[in-house]
């Protein structure tokens, strides 16, 4: 494991393990508490597998009351709690701590209410993202945010990470599609926000919970908005001789006032890996491949596809194919959707980065990433949500070669610094977790980070819920609350009064 320091485990808690387990079993009987090392193993990591740690115990509550009781108990005894959904986080958000109780929410797997006249669905947090769509698709509805991990990841995890997908360009991220939720605070208190109506009253706590990475509350129920499927969707597969030309085409499409359902780019390495894996029929003689999907009524889709095609030609595209059937469209996507595992086949290990940049910086960033790759001696395949500037550089390395993980992490950090430098951000959809935690000061000042931590203090003043994630330095809430003021200072004499 490389250089990310986690909070030091409390020796006292580790010694008291037997008692803690007994107390937890009083709240959840039977198989709901796991404490044997061999059974704890599956929970030692999420999808950021370079980091592993078994927790003190795992609990699998089934009722809100149990969640509340466990949290209350842990709050009283100062035991840390790490919430977990399906464990697909790519940033280490669900990584346990040695002295923590890991709370798996996967037994909360019921769909509670399907209310199509109000276009709302109420589910428990362990329901998978795709599970929601499956529950409503018989009536032509779907849940719009579609992370590539949607078969597996939970809606609770989606809220915690504010996950997005290929269609977020047009239909938004998780935060734009959630109407309400129920959560339990570290103190055990149950709070409900919003409902089936639009715009919850008072402060926008839903906005804070989306992307809170399990640090603010344990989500126990979610109300999402579902949409009617667009009538048609067609995709164009467009190849370019260079990434710069592809990047320019992306800018031109958006500049022409077209918001595609999805707009993705892959570079040569990713194209080759994907084609080799799923045989999607991708052209192998291009440097960059774009998939543009237009959705809506047929008449509109046809007309916009023509516009996209002519913009592609203007940008010297050398390959263009428009899907004629649903099967063909799905094949175009199959390669893109399998891009991560495809890259996994050509390299023993890879690290998936997730910075976002302003679209116009795309050509420049691609060029400089190549230079960075040479500096670190590693290859990098690029797959990205081009429409919203969200990059997924996949850094190829071999953990068995001494020093390569470190080199890959250093390469990744350089890429993210570059993203911030050109006006972008460290993470577009995978979250900060532990992975990008220590890079937070690249983007935020000490004051910015302290104000964010004060939000945490309003929810969990003892820092017991998922500590060690997101913030590089943990300040005690009492310290954050202090104010250093100089009395008697008169405001700027020159400020206009009225």
């Amino acid at each position: 494991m490389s250089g990310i320091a986690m909070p030091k485990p409390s020796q006292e808690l580790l010694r008291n393990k037997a008692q803690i387990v007994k107390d937890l079993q009083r709240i959840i009987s039977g198989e709901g508490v796991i404490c044997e090392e061999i059974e704890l193993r599956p929970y030692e990591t999420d999808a950021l597998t370079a980091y592993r740690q078994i927790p003190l115990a795992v609990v699998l509550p089934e009722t809100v009351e149990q969640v509340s009781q466990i949290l209350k108990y842990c709050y009283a005894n100062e035991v840390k709690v790490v919430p977990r959904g399906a464990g697909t986080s790519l940033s280490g958000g669900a990584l346990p701590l040695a002295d923590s109780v890991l709370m798996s929410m996967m037994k909360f797997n019921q769909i509670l209410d399907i209310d199509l006249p109000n276009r709302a669905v109420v589910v428990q947090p362990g329901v998978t993202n795709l599970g929601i769509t499956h529950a409503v698709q018989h009536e032509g509805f779907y849940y719009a945010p579609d992370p590539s991990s949607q078969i597996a990841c939970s809606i609770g995890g989606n809220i915690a990470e504010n996950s997005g997908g290929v269609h977020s360009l047009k239909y938004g991220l998780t935060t734009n599609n959630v109407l309400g939720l129920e959560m339990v605070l570290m103190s055990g208190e149950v709070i409900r926000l919003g409902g089936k109506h639009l715009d919850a009253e008072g402060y926008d706590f839903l906005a804070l919970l989306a992307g809170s990475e399990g640090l603010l509350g344990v989500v126990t129920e979610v109300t999402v908005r579902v949409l009617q499927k667009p009538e048609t969707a067609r995709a164009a597969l467009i190849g370019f001789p260079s990434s710069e030309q592809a990047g320019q085409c992306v800018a031109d499409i958006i500049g022409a006032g077209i918001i595609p359902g999805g707009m993705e780019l892959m570079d040569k390495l990713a194209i080759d890996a994907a084609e080799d894996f799923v045989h999607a029929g991708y052209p192998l003689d291009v440097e960059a491949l774009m998939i543009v999907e237009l959705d809506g009524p047929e008449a509109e889709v046809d007309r916009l596809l023509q516009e996209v095609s002519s913009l592609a030609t203007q940008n010297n595209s050398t390959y263009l194919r428009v899907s004629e059937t649903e099967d063909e469209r799905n094949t175009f996507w199959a390669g893109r959707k399998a891009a991560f595992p495809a890259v996994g086949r050509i390299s023993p290990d890879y690290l998936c980065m997730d910075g976002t940049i302003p679209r116009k910086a795309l050509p420049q960033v691609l060029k400089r990433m190549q230079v960075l790759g040479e500096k670190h001696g590693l290859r990098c395949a690029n797959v990205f949500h081009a429409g919203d500037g969200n990059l997924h550089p996949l850094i190829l390395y071999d953990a068995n070669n001494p020093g390569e993980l470190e080199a890959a992490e250093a390469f990744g950090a350089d890429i993210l610094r570059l993203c911030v430098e050109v006006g972008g951000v460290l993470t577009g959809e995978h979250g900060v977790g532990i992975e990008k935690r220590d890079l937070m000061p690249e983007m935020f000042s000490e004051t910015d980070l302290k104000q964010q931590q004060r939000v945490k203090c309003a929810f969990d003043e003892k820092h017991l819920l998922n500590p060690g994630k997101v913030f590089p330095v943990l300040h005690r809430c009492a310290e954050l609350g202090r104010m250093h003021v100089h009395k008697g200072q008169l405001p700027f004499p020159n400020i206009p009064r009225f």
Partner: protein
Amino acid sequence: MAQSFRPRDTAELVEVVKWAAAEQQPLEVIGNGSKRALGRPMQVANTLALDHLTGVVDYEPAELVLTARAGTPLAEIQALLQDNGQELAFEPMDYGPVLGEELGRATFGGTLSANVSGPRRIKAGAARDHVLGLEAVSGRGELFRAGGRVVKNVTGYDLARAFCASWGTLAVASTITVKVAPKATTEKTVCLFGLQGVEATGAMSAALGSSAEVSGAAHVPEKLAALQSGNWGGGRSATLLRLEGIEESIDYRVGILRRVLELAGTVEIMDAAASFSVWQSIRNLTVFPHNLGALWRVSVAPTAADDVIASLPEGCLVMQDWGGGLLWIADPDDQRDGTSLRAAIASAGGGHATLVKAPENVRNTIDVFHPQEPGLSLLTKRLKSQFDPHGILNPGRMYKGV
């Protein structure tokens, strides 16, 4: 001594709030003051007005992103976007007319801090859905930044979005970044006349549940429709469904709606000009008469609306937007405290009611914003004190003690 400040730049803004924090001097924070009559009246001597903190800082049409200072007139931003074939997709409404002010006085920051959206909210999202980043001064007098200038960003807590709907009680924004959208080339409105109650909400639900991509769904009842000039179906109630986009797409989608609404009644079509003007009057509430008494704003699930409407006292006029879920209720009795309205909302499945317009004595004594459950209310207070420990920013405007 009472002071009124008009900072011209961020440094001056920080200076004022620092002073107020050090002296524990509460500030009434306003943009242009266009929504001053909305909320609980405050007992605050000092005013901090942001109307000199103006200007678009950055706008790149091809990036679909705009950054402006908080006091910039919203109208200026809308005009700039219009010139570039773009717009704020959340279509902010204007409280001016109902609050006895002119149209077009709102500022950018005021619009976002009150999360003001319009009819297109059902399709494009609320104001908060379009906010990407922010620079603001907390009640501690500290300048902080949150979010960024790109659409996809999960780096740190989403303080920029959380600023929306805080009504100036958490922090004072100096600059805000939003995403903007290409403006639709044209629009048409599909109308059904004469529908009542569940027929109307049912028709709107069916339309919104179809693939017609309806971008506005409102119902104007008979009594209100009768007050309108122009072609409003001769005093019958009007159920209005707006379609925007390119011409051939709209025409095609009119066909979808005709099929979906086959059983609901005869469909008539408003052309672009008529559609535009109808939606302007819905958006800015000019469908209501001037002397409307008290005005309540209610958000419920669309199918709950009919029960809430049925519970209202005689004489109330209700317009439904957002597919039926947003109720604008004009009550000739402007002294009502909202208890029975809120009880009806709760028993219809939940939602909230805000008193938008009422005399000061009423707003002084009742809950203007929907009262919160005890746990949520405490969380609200804790969040407030983490941003503004001395309670100097718009104290009491939303809730007592917040």
